[in-house]
């Protein structure tokens, strides 16, 4: 149809550009600007502090703790959640496996539930006076009092991790199922005829064939680990004494509960840079491997 008039392009692209710029791009840059000031969000932003907020960020012990938790979540996702998702994908992607569709549908279900509902439900499960933990404990140790897993600084992060795996493994499984469908069935059959073991077939045919899916799910789970908020918030807001804190819950507390917008902005910028640096390295790594 040849060239489009400026008016046509403006009508088509204008609304999206305005919406996206106003609510995504400008706020992100504003956060960067705030990060150099001490400001409570009211009145003019005049108290310029240079890199002071960043220095505070590096020294802040709660930041260290929170980032360590995020890292732990990422590691557990990679080491536990993704292999579990892969195992289940291998099982239920086989259409001759009776009930595969049912299992698939059911395993994905937790992903569709809201994070808040999931979090509150698990608060009950962990509740020392009512929940599942109490029932299990009463069965194993009839005399002992059940532990409050979410109320104890040494267990809360692990309790949260269980919920994270529970909620998200189905998502990764679904990505893997989609990836498995792209692997030519003949290759797998051929390997079988050649007498390759299942293990061998998995490592030399199936896994390489699923490269894109695996890369994608690794990417999602690491980025997701550093952005976790809702579930943690619904399971005790990162408490007790920051033992369940993630970097985003901490940012929320600093920015919108203590109204230290400047330092909150600094934390936001650092979250962004962590994601960006990871993204750049990850892409580089993948390019090199190809």
């Amino acid at each position, binding site marked *: 149809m040849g060239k489009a008039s400026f008016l046509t*392009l403006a009508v088509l692209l204008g609304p999206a550009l305005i919406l*996206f710029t106003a609510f*995504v791009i400008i706020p992100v840059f504003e*956060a960067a600007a705030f990060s150099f000031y001490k400001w409570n*969000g009211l009145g003019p932003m005049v108290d310029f502090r240079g890199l002071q907020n960043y220095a505070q960020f590096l020294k802040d012990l709660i930041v260290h703790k929170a980032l360590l938790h995020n890292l732990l979540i990422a590691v557990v996702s990679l080491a536990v959640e993704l292999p579990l998702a892969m195992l289940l994908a291998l099982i239920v992607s086989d259409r001759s496996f009776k009930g595969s569709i049912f299992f698939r549908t059911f*395993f994905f279900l937790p992903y569709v539930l809201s994070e808040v509902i999931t979090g509150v439900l698990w608060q009950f499960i962990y509740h020392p006076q009512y929940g*599942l933990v109490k029932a299990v404990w009463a069965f194993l140790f009839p005399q002992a009092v059940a532990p409050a897993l979410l109320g104890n600084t040494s267990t809360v992060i692990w309790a949260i991790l269980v919920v994270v795996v529970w909620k998200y493994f189905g998502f990764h499984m679904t990505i893997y199922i989609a990836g498995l469908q792209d692997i030519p069935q003949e290759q797998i059959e051929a390997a079988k005829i050649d007498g390759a073991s299942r293990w061998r077939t998995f490592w030399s045919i199936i896994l390489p064939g699923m490269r*894109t899916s695996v890369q994608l799910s690794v990417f999602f789970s690491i980025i997701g680990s550093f952005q976790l908020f809702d579930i943690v918030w619904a399971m005790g807001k990162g408490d007790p004494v920051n033992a369940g804190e993630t970097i985003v819950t901490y940012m929320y507390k600093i920015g919108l509960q203590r109204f230290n917008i400047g330092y909150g902005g600094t934390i*936001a910028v650092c979250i962004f840079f962590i994601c960006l640096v990871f993204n750049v390295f990850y892409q580089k790594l993948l390019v090199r491997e190809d």
Partner: protein
Amino acid sequence: MKSLKVESALMAVVKYFVCAIMLVVIAVPLYISVMGGFKSTGQLRAEPMGVPDPFYAKQYVDLLTGAQGSFWRELGNSVVIGLGTVAVVIAVGTFAAYALARIPFKLNSLLYGYFQLGLLFPLAVAILPLYLQLRTFKLLDTRIGVILPQAAFQLAMMLMLLRGFFKGIPDELEEAAAIDGYGRFGFLFRIVVPLSTPILATVGVITLVTSWNNFFTPLLVFNSLKKFTLPMGVMDFMGQHASDWNMILAFLTLAMVPAVILYVFCQKYIVAGLTGGAVKG
């Protein structure tokens, strides 16, 4: 041959065993929630796992009749916010994706790259300035103040899905449409949109689910109880009924139902959008 058969039978047993364990792991919390809603607090304390005996339907009845909490109002709010976000994303996204997919112009790939930046910016990074900005625009505590940011943050991903699909529409169709006298908008509305119902459904359903479950944006924007969505309602209800866990569980169960129904009926679109689009993108 016989040993192979034994082996594959054994393998099947192992597979079903693994699936059964996962089934239990997922089902038990859901079972606890549904059944817990039918128990009295005393039953809940004595028998957290068992089937309630007798069943107390009072919690569910109270919630559904509005004697306790405000389930229907919060459900309604979630529906309004969800559909509003879907409408904005579909309208704005279809227009922009059409231009990016099918109109050659100088800044095309630059603009697409600009929108793709959105994939790198999580909502969390923007949340503080967003709050201040909504305050400046007087959009705090308004529905549109939740709908617009939600739509904006959904846009990058959805543009990717839509653009990919629109690119796949054959050029011959466009030429034929031109011969029939359709302009760009005629082609968009009469050919592209009708051909794209599967991808539009995917975009719509994913946006709806994301909005439905979103807690961060409404938490930021809404102040008055009257506007709370379901996830906020759940948190608020829990704050008020701290020890009435039977009530809370009944509320949770009711709040889960719409998402589960939506999932069962729209599973195809949800899975396609989350995986197909992502894997090919």
